[in-house]
């Protein structure tokens, strides 16, 4: 068996004095798509940000593509192909959709562009008609699509999505699911933090369930469904 694309073990993370993540272990193989489930405040965002060293203080082992990320800056982690699409999207309002998406590539220069802008328009058909529109003139759903496309165009090897369909209309959620299916066909690996079970089930094959900063379950969707108490105990509001 080859080594996983992302291998996390014994990961602890803090915001100030509050200890958020407790000895988290998680792995993603090349080409795999993984769901990270949990309630609001369970530690999903903190975990994704800790992978990039983009917020919480953390300790523990994070290996990406066989290389330890300890001591590596956020920029260099992103350049290695670990891309985070944050929950609040962060589209730059003063530049166009195309320019926003192209930002992902500037840093990836010379890393071999596997995805062309044409591939992006094919994967995200809703975005092509918007390509010259300003980032500030997009709806929430359109912004989310741009944010994901920007990560893909940045030559992501592993794309981490933080609640990509939170607050979106059902029709946009369906579109996102189709776009992600297209990305998976291109061989992209994904780690998706979500609370929308129907969406994330359609996009992933394995599940990690986090509660109060502890991984309380990991396995495939059959195993997850086999234990109905998981949903009641860790996901019910």
């Amino acid at each position: 068996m080859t080594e996983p694309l992302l291998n996390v073990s014994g990961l602890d993370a803090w915001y100030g004095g509050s200890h958020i993540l407790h000895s988290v272990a998680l792995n993603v193989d090349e080409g795999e798509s993984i769901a990270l489930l949990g309630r609001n405040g369970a530690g999903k965002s903190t975990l994704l940000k800790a992978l990039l060293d983009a917020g919480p203080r953390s300790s523990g082992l994070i290996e990406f593509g066989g290389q330890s990320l300890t001591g590596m800056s956020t920029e260099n982690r992103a350049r290695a192909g670990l891309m985070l699409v944050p929950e609040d999207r962060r589209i730059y309002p003063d530049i166009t959709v195309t320019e926003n998406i192209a930002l992902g590539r500037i840093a990836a220069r010379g890393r071999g562009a596997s995805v062309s802008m044409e591939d992006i328009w094919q994967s995200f058909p809703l975005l092509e008609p918007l390509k010259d529109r300003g980032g500030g003139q997009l709806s929430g759903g359109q912004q989310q699509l741009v944010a994901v496309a920007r990560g893909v165009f940045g030559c992501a090897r592993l794309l981490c999505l933080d609640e990509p369909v939170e607050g979106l209309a059902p029709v946009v959620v369906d579109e996102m699911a189709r776009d992600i299916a297209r990305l998976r066909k291109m061989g992209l690996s994904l780690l998706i933090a979500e609370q929308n079970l129907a969406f994330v089930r359609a996009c992933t094959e394995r599940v990690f369930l986090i509660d109060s900063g502890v991984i309380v379950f990991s396995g495939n969707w059959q195993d997850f469904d086999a234990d109905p108490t998981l949903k009641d105990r860790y996901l019910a509001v």
Partner: protein
Amino acid sequence: MMMDIGLVVFGGLSWAMATFLVAAGLTLIFGILHILNFAHGGFFMVGAYLAWAMIEALGGGVSIWTYIAVALVSGAVVGALGVLVDVTIFRRLRDVEDAYALIATYALLMVCIGAIELIWGLDFRAIMPPEALNSALFIGDLIAPTFTIFIIVCGVVVYVALEVFMARTETGKLVRIVAHDAWMARLLGLDVTRIYLITVVISFALAGLAGGLLVANQGLSPELGGVFLLQAFGVVIVGGMGSIRGAFLAALLLGQIESIGGMLFPNYPGIFYLVALAGLLLIRPQGLLTKGRTEWV
């Protein structure tokens, strides 16, 4: 009371562009790095003294082109000092509270003044403008010194160059991206540290250039930086912290007000500027142009 409108406008423009030359780098560094750089006036003086020393070494009376070249060299040298300051000081200020940045840059201002006193002493120095700029144009009743016209042109050129740099160049675009959201820029793999360094170098180079351009017609003493810094801070605040266009407009506005005030109350130079500053801040505390600026964890 009779007022010569031409003279007022011209005097205002002169004040405005001299102040803008100093304010440009100050507002740039604040807009991108969110550091209020008290040392800016110090590096402005370093630029002025460097230019003075170079012109003295060349034997005094230099041509206008030599004068400009000397100012550019001053800008380049002070820009290079910017590399040193960014690597040794500014980089350490990014993760600490703003108060540390105030103390650090104020200390750096003291270092600049001390260095100037050590190297060049406390004596007043003065230098004449180049021959070609040492006359005056007569426009109707208005006597316009050519050196003042030169400074006004320099202010406009620097402003246009900065606007073009920010709007049209790839680096300028990245500077704007980082100013708007540095956290996301890092997540996209952009080299934010390098973009900050470029910003600091440009800001310092502008301080040095301003010193070199304004050196003639000034009594050069180690206190000079403070005078310009105070005016430049006012322009930066009224313009909207971090906005180059705002600083330019605020300089024009405050220049006219200061000029009118000087005409009405010649015995109280500088007071109108302070009154106008207070008044404008009461009306628009956020400044004339405020940038969409957001901060995250």
